[in-house]
């Protein structure tokens, strides 16, 4: 792999034994992802809302103009013969750092069993577990923004079991704290969320591979607060409160094509997910929207997206996505509140083109036409994603 001409310092002609390990050989691998965006948003992202759906600030279309995206710093290594560990810091443009992942995972249980503990992305659905630098678009699809607070992560315990079959068949279960949207307030004595899922997958010939899954996420909310819009500086009068249970069902399908399994020059990835969200509890609308106070609320909403990204020549990809949401009708009691869909069916269409200079750098342009209600927003993004240092292998 190494050009002799380029590496004069390399001991090219002289055969050597595998390099002797230096004193830093036990240092964990360090992977840094730098990303930044330029966003041209027709409407003010601080007043962004989707009628019928309580949202977190993360669902916002982003900040206008130049901004840092999420920069990620991941440190990971085998701990000993039985454990693997990973820590991922996420550094946002507003100078806040958060722990995105911090988990330990078994490597030696065998029999297809893996246990993970700490903070991790839940294994529900397909996109939920994917780190943002591997996404095909700048942003998450609408149902993930509305039902999972963009991406569900929590502190907890995960058990996965892989069946000893030729077809990939994995069963997973998670017990989590329940502190993040759609959960809130760490209900049930800090066991406020649990998940169960099954993932299948296989190949069709050398050129096609697929994955499919069914997932369930049950969460409890204790005084979960959200803002009537995605403004992060939210006043009390603009705050909705929910107490109760949320049950989310997800069906996902991924299909990837690459001629003879070589994705270097050409490849196509297609994915679609359907999410159904059931709420049952008490909703207290923000006083700026309604004076009804706390009311019983039960309803089912759903959403789906379908997207495809096609690499037609080495380095260049084009992607299309459609996503939409269907709110339930919460009844007259919630007229004018966040839960009132006001007759809208929020939907969005996106197109993106990106250029991958090497496995480590990518530049993307994306256009969203978002008909999420109230106004039609035209959103343009330019994004760079670059990775430095070690680079952990990507999930399927």
């Amino acid at each position: 792999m190494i050009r002799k001409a380029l590496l004069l310092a390399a001991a090219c002609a002289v055969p050597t034994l595998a390099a002797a390990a230096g004193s830093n050989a036990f240092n964990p691998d360090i992977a840094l992802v730098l990303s930044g965006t330029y966003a041209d948003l027709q409407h003010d992202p601080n007043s962004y809302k989707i009628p019928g759906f309580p949202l977190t600030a993360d669902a916002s279309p982003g900040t206008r103009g130049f901004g840092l995206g999420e920069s990620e710093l991941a440190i990971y290594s085998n701990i000993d013969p039985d454990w693997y560990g990973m820590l991922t810091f996420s550094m946002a443009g507003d100078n806040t750092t958060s722990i995105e992942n911090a988990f330990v995972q078994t490597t030696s249980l065998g029999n297809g069993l893996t246990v993970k503990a700490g903070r991790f992305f839940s294994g529900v659905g397909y996109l939920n577990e994917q780190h943002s630098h591997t996404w095909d678009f700048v942003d998450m699809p609408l149902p993930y923004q509305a039902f999972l607070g963009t991406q569900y992560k929590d502190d907890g315990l995960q058990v996965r079991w892989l069946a000893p079959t030729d077809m990939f068949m994995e069963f997973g279960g998670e017990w989590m704290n329940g502190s993040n949207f759609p959960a809130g307030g760490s209900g049930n004595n800090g066991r406020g969320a649990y998940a169960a899922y099954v993932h299948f997958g296989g190949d069709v010939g050398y050129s096609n591979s697929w994955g499919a899954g069914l997932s369930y996420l049950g969460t409890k909310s204790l005084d979960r607060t959200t803002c009537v819009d995605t403004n992060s500086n939210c006043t009390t009068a603009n705050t909705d409160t929910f107490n109760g249970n949320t049950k989310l069902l997800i069906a996902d399908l991924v299909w990837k094509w690459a001629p003879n399994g070589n994705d270097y020059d050409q490849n196509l990835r297609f994915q679609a997910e359907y999410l159904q969200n059931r709420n049952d509890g008490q909703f207290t609308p923000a006083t700026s929207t309604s004076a009804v106070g706390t009311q019983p609320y039960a309803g089912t909403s759903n959403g789906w997206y379908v997207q495809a990204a096609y690499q037609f020549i080495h380095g260049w990809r084009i992607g299309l996505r459609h996503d939409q949401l269907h709110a339930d009708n919460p009844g007259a009691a919630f007229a004018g509140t966040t839960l009132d869909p006001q007759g809208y069916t929020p939907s969005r269409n996106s197109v993106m083109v990106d250029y991958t200079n090497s496995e480590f750098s990518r530049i993307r342009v994306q256009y969203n036409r978002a008909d999420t209600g109230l106004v039609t927003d035209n959103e343009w993004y330019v994004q760079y994603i670059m990775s430095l240092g070690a680079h952990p292998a990507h999930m399927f």
Partner: protein
Amino acid sequence: MKTFAKLFALVLLAGVLRPAAADVNVFACEPEWGALTQELAGNKADIYTATNPLQDPHHIQARPSLIAKLRRADLTVCTGAQLEIGWMPMLMLQAGNDKIQNGRPGDFQATLQVKMLEVPASVNRALGDIHPDGNPHIQTDPRNIGEVAKALTARLEVIDPANAGYYAARGADFTKRWDAAIARWEQEAKPLRGVRVVVHHDGWAYLFNWLGLQEAGALEPKPGVPPSAGHLAELKQELAGNPAKMVIYAAYQDSRSSDWLSQQTGIPAVKLAFTVGGTPGAGDLFGLYQDTIDRMLKALKK
């Protein structure tokens, strides 16, 4: 939930009813290691080869089918030296298989058994896709296969001690036939000594070292960076002053850049198998080197 329970039962049943497997389940990363394991383990191993000869082993997705295969492996036979770094670590994390984790007997890396070439003194991504442990494409020198065969035989004896005698006997037989074949190939390949050859990708260091070939340039401006028009034009100019005899590319690589250079300079473009199965003549390990030498000798006569 009922269907879920049924499915679960079905899975358990499928596990129980699986036909009596061979003694050792082997997951070979590349075809040459699948072929070598076949030579050494005969009918005692059930071998799954994760990549086919026309796939680029640098760029494989961590597909669910591979995870499912790795889950049941007793032994992985891979190149190592970070060739599979884009996919194997993810498979190993997801397979829930303790036997094949790093440092266990079931983790066999061929590059740990041989002397590595082109180990860089320092690494920098600006130099392209380089491997800190050295050039991983060791299978282009049959003497490396011989070394790996000895180590792999020893490893099979550890993994499956009940059949240790069987592996030892097969290993000794293979070594005898292999050493004879190497002597024959070295004789046949004598005309290639000192011949200047252009490569598509720097995957041939070990072949060059074995046969005494000289690298006259690479189509890729930097390892893993696709050939560009500008770089090819430069290379053409260089070759005008100091000509090469042929340009070689691996069967899994796109032939267009090699064909272009061939048309521009009049030197033949030669497709080489690179691994077992890459060309019709490279049906097994013996065929791989015979076919490689035959093709280069034929090009030399042009």
